[in-house]
């Protein structure tokens, strides 16, 4: 089965500009607000955001060219999985620069995040304007909850970060990610080109 790696690379290169700009923006904000003290945790949070954004953009706008140019839904879905895997590898490599080894929980949570992004993108595509509105509200809520927790001070943030060390968290993250991927496929398999 042909998976058009050149197309994925081209698409990623085009959208990485936006992802890179977002990363720089958060790093500046982090530096200004002293969140940098949480180093790996904060950087992981930034990458989580990017890991949500890229697959959701792939599902929402990336589908237009492949599906209208003769790529099957199965191929497109597998291309999405390649993209997720590629992003996960890149992020892991970057995280290795900040710690001797990346905590497995962080990597697993990023896998769940990237699957959430894919599902949200698929939902937005399937339900159109309503999906976009729900997506925006969910993003707003997530941002609000995150902001609220950080506003509660260092202790709360440290508590949140310590959740990452729970032994069951990687397993739960992987399970959630797999369920989200399966749900995305259910939408992808009958996706239409407008």
């Amino acid at each position: 089965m042909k998976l058009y790696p050149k197309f994925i690379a081209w698409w990623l290169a085009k959208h990485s500009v936006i992802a890179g700009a977002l990363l720089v923006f958060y790093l500046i904000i982090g530096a200004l607000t002293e969140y940098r003290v949480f180093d790996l945790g904060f950087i992981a949070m930034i990458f989580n955001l990017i890991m949500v954004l890229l697959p959701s953009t792939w599902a929402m706008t990336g589908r237009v060219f492949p599906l209208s140019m003769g790529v099957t839904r199965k191929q497109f879905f597998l291309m999405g999985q390649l993209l997720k895997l590629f992003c996960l590898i890149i992020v892991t490599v970057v995280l290795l620069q900040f710690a001797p080894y990346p905590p497995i929980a962080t990597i697993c949570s990023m896998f769940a995040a990237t699957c959430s992004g894919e599902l949200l993108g698929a939902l937005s595509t399937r339900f159109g304007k309503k999906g976009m509105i729900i997506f925006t509200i969910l993003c707003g809520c997530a941002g609000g909850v995150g902001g609220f927790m950080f506003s509660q001070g260092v202790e709360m943030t440290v508590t949140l970060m310590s959740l990452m060390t729970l032994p069951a968290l990687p397993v739960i993250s992987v399970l959630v990610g797999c369920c989200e991927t399966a749900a995305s496929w259910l939408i992808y398999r009958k996706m239409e080109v407008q």
Partner: protein
Amino acid sequence: MAKTLKASGLVKVYGKKEVLHSVDVEFESGCIYGLIGRNGAGKTTLLSCITAQTWANAGEITYGGEPVWENEKALGEICFAREISQILFMGQNTYKVRDYLRAAKLLYPHWDEQYAQQLVDRFGLERKKRVSALSKGMLSMLTIVLALASNAPVTILDEPVAGLDVVAREDFYKLLLDNYAKTQRTFIVSTHILDEAASVFEKVIILDDGNVIEQGNTDELVSQFRYVSGKEEQVDEAVAGMKVLLEEKAGRSKAVVVRSSEQNLQQLEQNPDVDISPLNLQKVFVALTGQKEG
């Protein structure tokens, strides 16, 4: 081996509205087809279904005897250059012309890059311009570049001339015929602008309100119709027993469009009391689909 693109019993429902009603249609290899129908007749829906860009509620679509849906091999041989909408805020509109062509180059297996660049220069398309910033005519040209350079054995163009002026339309049909002469691939052109198209389409499919009402050779179809005019009584007498499709009255004069067998039409042409003239494809199309307003 020549492959046929075939749909049988095709039904498509959007919400509660059935847009295609058990459509049977066949596109043979190496032929230029015209898919004509009024706005909202279901042309784009039919083309979307046969190219697996939209799923059908019922029916079967095959290419060379194999189902088209999720068939990598079959879809690689079909190019559906759909009409690009200026109002879509996501998808292809956010890209530049060169990105659009780049994506086509990476995805279409038979893509001819040199020909694509030639066409871009010929049409004067600006490579750095965003698709959303293109005029309607330029969008049509981009669709044409995509279709012709795809080199797909089955190439489908959805309303390619909708935004083009008469000079550009003639240029497009010339390009289409040149390409067809070289490649002998199947072209399916959906349109409702028939001025220049009639002489290009070898076969025509007329879609009306989700039903295929005519399907066959263009010349054979057009030859079955005549425009008969004269005094009312004489016209009525001349066309008695024939199928009258359109009727126009002005005072004591009357004009009708009739459809009949070759034998009946030959007899009709010998009638000295009425004026008889042949119809072009556009008039035939109006006669067949414009009756609701008539």
